[in-house]
């Protein structure tokens, strides 16, 4: 199943509350209802990816429209309003929750994802702007039981306390390695300058990254 639409997406293996609905499911449920109301007021135009008729500028809003995103190699479709950020689209509409919402204002890095091979803050761009571009989140760094070396080193060196900043840091660090397999300390610092750890686990992150860089040097 490559194409999933939010409303009928099954929620399996998730903690549920009293009435048998997970928190996320509940939030989605109300979102779907709201989106349905919105749709009765005919969107101005279909999503911006639609081919415009001659003389017509593609656009949409303020009501919800259909949006398809390419997340970790999967096509995911949902209905969203133009004002929804990429972060909220991923977390609240598509259940891709590796990217975290912390400052929500483009300054802490917890929401970092790779967009078209570049690290970006998903909280300070519109989901619409990500159409047609590959998006990779922290989830892409786990294949079954196998962790990518970057999160594996973070786990091994205990480079987190609350762990909320961690998905952002590992995605940003992965981006550094994709630019240069043997980054200099200055390149690492530059690549992580846009990420903040409120628990202050920088020392352990340093150990993890040092180990990673030395492994890469040896191999």
């Amino acid at each position, binding site marked *: 199943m490559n194409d999933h639409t939010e409303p009928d997406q099954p929620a399996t293996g998730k903690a549920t509350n009293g009435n048998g609905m997970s928190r996320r499911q509940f939030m989605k449920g109300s979102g779907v209802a709201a989106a349905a109301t919105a749709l009765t007021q005919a969107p101005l135009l279909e999503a*911006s990816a639609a081919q415009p008729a001659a003389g017509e500028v593609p656009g949409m809003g*303020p009501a919800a429209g259909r949006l398809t995103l390419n997340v970790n190699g999967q096509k995911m479709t949902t209905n969203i309003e133009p004002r929804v950020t990429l972060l909220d689209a991923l977390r609240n509409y598509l259940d891709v929750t590796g990217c975290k919402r912390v400052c929500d204002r483009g300054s802490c890095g917890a929401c970092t994802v790779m967009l078209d091979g570049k690290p970006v803050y998903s909280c*300070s761009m519109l989901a619409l702007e990500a159409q047609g571009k590959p998006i990779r989140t922290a989830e892409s760094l786990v294949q079954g039981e196998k962790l990518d070396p970057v999160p594996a080193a973070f786990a091994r060196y205990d480079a987190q306390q609350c762990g909320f900043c961690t998905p952002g840091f590992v995605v940003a660090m992965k981006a550094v390695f994709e630019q240069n397999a043997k980054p200099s300390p200055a390149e690492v610092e530059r690549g992580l300058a846009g990420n903040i750890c409120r628990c202050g686990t920088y020392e352990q992150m340093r150990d993890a990254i040092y180990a990673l860089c030395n492994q890469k040097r040896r191999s």
Partner: protein
Amino acid sequence: MLWLAEPPLGHKLNKAKTHLWDDSMKDIDYTAPRTLAEAAALLNDKGDRARILAGGTDIIVQLREHRRDLDLLVDVKNIAEVNELTFDPARGLRIGAAVPCYRIYENKDIAKAYPGLIDAVSLVGGVQIQSRASVGGNLCNASPAADTTPMLIALEATCHIAGPQGPRQLPVETFCTAPGRTALERGELLVSIDLPAPKPHSGAHYLRFIPRNEMDIAVVGAGASVVLDDKKQKCLAARIGVGAVAPTPLLVPDAGAALVDGALSDALIDKAVQAARAAAKPISDMRGTAEYRKHLVGVLVKRAVQGAIHRAREK
């Protein structure tokens, strides 16, 4: 945050659609025209109810914090002209208004020819911001503390503008008119920023002061560009741009003029420093007092000039 006050007349507020999690930005229309003419027509039609969306690192945050109230975002990233980035050693550099910072510093030819510009674009936020933020957006946001603008001023950039009355050009130092305001008229948008080809024996440098190592707004910024003679002992031309010391980034013509007045020496550079301090009309705010900024602008101009001379001599 729900609306506390009545929305402005004509605003299409639909409370039923206000979700728990995406209510921090009001309802808005989004459009992505493919031509400059379409973009200009939309902007002309909506006036100040519409704004351009480039990287969004300023505008999205401003909208979500309700610091701006708009009905329409016009995403220009589908328009070819604003994505253009071309360098020709004879003709110079064209930076499309929506080109993100990373495309500039990842281009080896540009990095070699315009090291001062690279100083500035590598300072804007962190890598995540640089993946999105454009030099055009930095300029059009018209913050007095924008990092790339003083360097564009020192590098003698020209703004290419499109609009309902046809294209026009402006020297970059006249583009910002007040904090958050530009010389753009109704319906106009910035298309590109053009830099002249670097002259022989030229060099440029930008630096800023912030209390952290990165990710902060400049307390003061200074950019310098110099052209030296064949022996590299005299300055033939110089331009100094400074930021965060006036309502707009400033060109300081007197500082540039001071440098072309004889053989290069510390005393000559000091004259440029004095000229920059005289031109600065800073305010006091949480980042520093006016007095502190006046002192700092001199320190930074000195270092920017020394850096520019060093690069010109290295070439």
